[in-house]
């Protein structure tokens, strides 16, 4: 048996009274893709931060190539050969690709101490070729590249360091289908070159596609390490949540009713073909497509967050005038935005204002003064109903895990008594347990006679939860498929046609 590159034993870490890691053990072999799986709050991020020297551990040992090591700072981690690619990329968009790759370790001329650009560009070009990219990109400003290529620049940075272990934290969560494929290939290639990868992901298919072994974390413990190919995702989930989930997609069928929401001749940008869309009561409509297909743009235009070029919005047979979010909310539309941190939450304010924000006038009394107790009661009610944890409305939104933050955002919109719910990537970056809760909530909304539209790049989720799939491609609708006829291939074809 080969000797592990990294071996982690009995790691403990607490913040004040909050015990985040309570004994984590696992090891990474050379040239292995090792998956870490766990619910939000299971301790993955803390573990990663310990491995990269951002946090110090309270107890435990780390062995690197058989030697006991202590990692105090990110620089020490880099010197060992540990590189990390975070979800939020660490790149400078104004600088060129090669400048980004060499940031902080620029090559200098031996005599004058000035930058040796020629050598840096050449090395960058070699790296780009190694990663299957056009070498000409080396001198292009990074901001002009797509997210997928920006991420490759981060990988190139790791390779320049001659990293032996690359930690990737949900690297595919923001990528489009094609970019994801490209990343998979590169991960395969790195593995063949003998580089180890710690891969964090919530996407089960991708774990099956890429992973060699998987370590499951729960409540700060490492529950078990399993070979990926010999086990099934159901087993992982059971270990991860500590119980078995009956269903990944708890889809409920309801009778299809009248049309409740329509777009007529709706154009986001003048150059796009107009969109016509009818959504019925009793159905969940999924909007599928590649990143950049214009789904979020469409939702924002419906909601009045951005100006639209033309067209009508009709709710229950009546045209509604929407030019800003306030009018949209008054018309009964809720928009659960894709990025809950930058568009959904007031991270440094407590839950009560977060929950009541979109419908504050509900809490204003006759004197126009807000009834703060009523706001708190409302927040408490949602915390209880939606099982938001920890159940303390005095805490700021920042202190909640991703899944619980998403519940807070949804609570905000439930509080507006909206009739039409547009969810934009509602389960991105949240764990399997929280996902199921979001799905159940959608069922409940449909049951209560609301219109539900879900934008999602997660195709299994669309196929698992929707009654109808609308596929968008460069701003227009290229397919409208009843779920019985929708297959992965058909949707992908419509999403990529003509591209």
């Amino acid at each position, binding site marked *: 048996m080969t000797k592990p590159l990294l071996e982690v034993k009995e790691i403990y870490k607490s913040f004040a009274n909050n015990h985040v890691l309570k004994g984590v053990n696992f090891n990474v072999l050379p040239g292995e893709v090792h998956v870490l799986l766990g619910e939000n709050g299971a301790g993955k991020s803390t573990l990663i931060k310990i491995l990269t020297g951002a946090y110090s551990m309270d107890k435990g040992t780390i062995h690197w190539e058989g030697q006991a090591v202590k990692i105090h700072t990110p620089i020490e981690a880099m010197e060992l050969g540990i590189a990390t690619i975070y979800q939020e990329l660490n790149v400078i968009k104004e600088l060129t690709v090669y400048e980004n790759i060499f940031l902080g370790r620029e090559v200098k001329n031996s005599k004058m101490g000035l930058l040796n650009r020629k050598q840096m560009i050449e090395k960058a070009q070699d790296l780009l070729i190694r990663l299957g990219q056009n070498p000409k990109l080396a001198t292009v400003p990074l901001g002009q590249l797509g997210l997928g290529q920006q991420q490759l620049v981060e990988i190139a940075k790791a390779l320049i360091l001659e990293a032996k272990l690359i930690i990737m934290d949900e690297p595919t969560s923001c990528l489009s289908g094609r970019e994801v494929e490209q990343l998979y290939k590169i991960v395969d290639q790195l593995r063949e070159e003998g580089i180890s990868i710690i891969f964090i992901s919530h996407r089960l298919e991708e774990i099956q596609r890429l992973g060699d072994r998987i370590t499951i974390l729960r409540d700060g413990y490492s529950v078990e390490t399993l070979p990926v190919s010999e086990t099934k995702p159901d087993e992982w989930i059971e270990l991860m949540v500590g119980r078995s989930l009956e269903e990944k997609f708890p889809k409920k069928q309801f009778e299809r009713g009248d049309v409740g929401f329509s777009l007529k001749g709706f154009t986001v940008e003048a150059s796009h073909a107009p969109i016509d869309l009818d959504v019925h009561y009793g159905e969940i409509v999924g909007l599928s497509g590649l990143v950049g297909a214009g789904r979020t743009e469409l939702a924002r235009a419906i909601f009045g967050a951005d100006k639209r070029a033309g067209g009508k919005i009709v709710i229950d047979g009546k045209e509604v005038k929407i030019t*800003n*979010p306030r009018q949209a909310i008054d018309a009964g539309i809720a928009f659960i935005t894709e990025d809950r941190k930058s*568009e959904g939450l*007031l991270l440094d304010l407590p839950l009560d204002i977060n929950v009541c924000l979109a419908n504050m006038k509900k809490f204003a009394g006759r004197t126009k003064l807000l009834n703060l107790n009523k706001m708190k009661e409302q927040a408490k009610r949602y915390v209880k109903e939606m099982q938001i944890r920890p159940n303390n409305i005095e805490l700021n939104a920042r202190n909640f895990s991703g899944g619980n933050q998403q519940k807070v955002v949804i609570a905000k919109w439930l509080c507006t008594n909206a009739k039409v719910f547009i969810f934009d990537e509602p389960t991105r970056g949240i764990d399997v347990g929280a996902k199921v809760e979001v799905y159940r909530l959608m069922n409940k909304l449909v049951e209560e006679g609301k219109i539900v539209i879900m934008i999602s790049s997660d195709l299994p989720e669309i196929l698992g939860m929707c009654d109808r799939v609308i596929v968008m491609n460069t701003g227009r609708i290229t397919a409208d498929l009843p779920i019985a006829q929708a297959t992965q291939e058909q949707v992908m074809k419509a999403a990529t046609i003509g591209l």
Partner: protein
Amino acid sequence: MEKVTQLLGEVNVEEHKQEKNYKNLLGKFGSLFALIILMIVLTFLSDKFLTVTNLMNIARQSTINALLALGMLLPILTAGIDLSVGSILAVSIMVMGVVSVTMGMHPILGILVCLLVGAGFGLLNGVLLTKLRLPHPFISTLGTMNIARGLALIITGAAPIAGFPYMIQYFGSEYVGPIPVSFVVVLVIYFIFHIFLTRSQTGRYIYAIGGNKEAARLSGINVDRVLIIVYTLSGLMAGLAGLMMVGRVNSAFPLAGSGYELDAIAAVIIGGASFFGGVGTVWGTLVGVLIIAVLRNGLNLLNVSADLQMAVIGVVIIVAVFVDVLRQRRSKASS
């Protein structure tokens, strides 16, 4: 098993809550403790400090900065800034001087004009920021700071105006018993602002915008309208501060209030507001104002030169914010 973990979870939450409360307490009253300690120390260092006359003196001296800082709190809560308040103060009192002294109109009209000019310049700040979409209030208010100062000088050709009617002087010079009227005005206005910020929709929106402007907009808040209100109120407070100043010195001069915006910003920050918006209270700001006023007064009593006073206040600003940074770092690490 499930039940046990549930119980454990609840216990954790309780502990978390208690600790949070303790921290909140320090966060909320940290600057108040600092003020009290400062006053105790000064009581020992100078026997003139803890006398009714001196304390009322401090109250009177703090009123102008108290009003400017209260106005400043609002832009800072929205992650903005208002550099123009000192200049707005000057132009407001110069216009009031022309109306009520040069033209001899009714003092009530003069007071109204003073407040209106202040609010008007504030409105201009708000409109420049939201309608012209200038990138940051630092820029729009830097512009109006110069415009207002220029106008204040132009109005009388840089000459001061003296001899205001009693009714105008009343607010800045008279006492109710031992308490200066101006300080009573400050307390009343602070109370109104406290209710406004904590209990009105617009008040809560101010915090929401400072916390996350985009999330606020997508929650249906008319961000532009709220920002215009914020800057208008800041200007209005500058006008009111001007009225207090005229009472105190019985004249209006075009260079009045130069650099006062910086004292106001200092008070707001010492009072615990965050420069990044969303965090800060009216009472914290009042404590910030009083810390600066007590410090100035104490250093005067101890015969410390004005130059050194300036340096000391600089150190206090840095220490106050550094303590806050430490506190936040700790609370972030524990979450």
